[in-house]
């Protein structure tokens, strides 16, 4: 059984349905990406998995490590070992770096030590007492990942971690993704618009278009099939 199983998921907002029968499987220790154009339904998928207030899930099932996520309250999900790093990072701007991390650790089942996070991300160590809103986008992204990692998750949902970041930081993020996947045994579902990041980090790729999973491909095929990329990703 896969670690994360999304089956036949229908979801949408007041204005209309967005996801139509989405199926996604992520095996333990895999890095899987979910690719698609702007508005294809990537973030909606992520939000549906963690049970956010919106969108409303209208059908299907989401199972994580044997738990039915649709029947689990959003704030209980992190304790199952599934952690979300949301789109736009959403660090708590008025809290310091330490506070952001400590907050996440406080509400985890079996957290890692906060000091371990600073060792893991030396950039953050230098700015422990800085308010998150005074950090650069790349630093905030690292904080968001640290905040997630401190909860000692089995799996992280990473929503567009490289959006709007400078190329050298994008490479740093790519490295981090690979490290936590390979060295720390964390499973990752990555949403990206930046195909290069997905190619560099993920093993498998789901292509989503207008709320339908239209294909599931290997990294190799995605790299070679330009027509496929053009059709679904516009690149």
């Amino acid at each position, binding site marked *: 059984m896969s670690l994360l199983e999304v089956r036949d998921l229908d979801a949408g907002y007041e204005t209309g349905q967005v996801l139509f029968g989405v199926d996604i499987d992520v095996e333990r220790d895999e890095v899987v990406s979910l690719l698609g154009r702007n508005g294809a339904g990537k973030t909606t998928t992520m939000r549906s998995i963690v049970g956010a*207030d919106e969108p409303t899930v209208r059908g299907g099932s989401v199972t994580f490590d044997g738990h039915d996520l649709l029947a689990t309250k959003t*704030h209980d999900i992190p304790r199952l070992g599934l952690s979300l790093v949301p789109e736009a990072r959403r660090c708590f701007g008025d*809290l310091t770096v330490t506070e952001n991390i400590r907050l996440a650790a406080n*509400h985890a089942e079996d957290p890692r030590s906060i000091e371990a996070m600073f060792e893991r991300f030396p950039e953050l160590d230098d700015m422990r007492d800085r308010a998150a809103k005074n950090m650069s986008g790349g630093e905030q992204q690292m904080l968001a990942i640290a905040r997630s990692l401190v*909860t000692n998750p089995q799996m992280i949902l990473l929503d567009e971690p490289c959006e709007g970041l400078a190329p050298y930081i994008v490479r740093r993020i790519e490295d981090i993704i690979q490290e936590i996947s390979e060295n720390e045994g964390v499973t990752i579902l990555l949403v990206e618009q930046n195909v290069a990041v997905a190619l560099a980090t993920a093993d498998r790729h789901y292509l989503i278009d207008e709320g339908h999973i239209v294909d599931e491909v290997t990294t190799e095929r995605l790299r070679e099939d330009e027509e496929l990329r053009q059709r679904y990703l516009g690149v």
Partner: protein
Amino acid sequence: MSTSSSRTLGLDRLSAGGAAVWGAIALLLLVALAVEPGLFVDQFVGGLVYGMTLVLIALGLSIILGLLGIVNFAHGALFMLGAYFTYQLMALWGLPFWVALVVAPLLVGLVGVLMERLVLQWLYDEPPLAGLLAAFGIALMIQEATRAIWGDTPLSVATPAVLAQSADLAVTTVARIRLFSVVVAALVVLGVYLLIERTDFGLSVRAGVQDREMAGFLGIDMPRRFVLMFFLGAVIAGIGGVLQGTAVGMSPTMGQQYIIITFVVVVVGGIGSLFGSVVAGLLIGEAVFLTPLVLRSLADVTGVGALAVPGIGGLVPYLVMILVLLVRPRGLYGQEGFME
């Protein structure tokens, strides 16, 4: 922590224009001090006492507004209930003041929780006006129920003997019950500050204020915290009611009388900033007490009698608000983008 507290203290925001305003105010105060030194001290202390009463009510309001985005119009009614519960406990059941001081606020807290669970929790995601209207309805209900239970005639309880006299502060005398109120209010402010700034619970609440959904994604049970904070806000209003009821008595209109001025305090302080509410409460308390005196002194000095406008005291909080908001659109310490 250091950056965060300098932010809360607003030390990084002192501008040249602000300095000029403060300078002018200081000059006016000096004139008043020179003309009537004894009265000035009396009024200054009086303003402090009154300001702390405002702070006590504003604090709960500010917590609920800042955290839940609910304009809790019923907060004045909770304050009033604190006073009437005191009457029930002391005058009707013969319990001592110190019991009332603890029990009445807890009862008010329960009423607050009931309000939140039955009504307001369904409105968190609605426009603020929906919450305001529902809270207004609740305020009406509480007020009418109060009239039905305890009657229209204002009531009072005997001030406990230790607090009944006046305290001699060398420069002025103040009613002891008022002084006691200031001490309790200060302790409450301190307690809330420690709770919010220094505990893990406070940390999660601060996070929830900034991004409720993200806090949920991190595993924080925000609804439970909302109930607790609502309870806390109601308890504080209840404490205010006990003190006010003991000092001046209780009437079914006392909630109405205070609710609007308390909103003024919260807005002047800046929505979302507890510290702002404290500063604004004291500022408005002093302004209400000192403005008439300043005007009278000015009238004496300049010989322009028209400056001493009778009855100006009631308008002062609103004038302060206009001034503050024209200079600082978000109030003294308001958060950027919050309720804007």
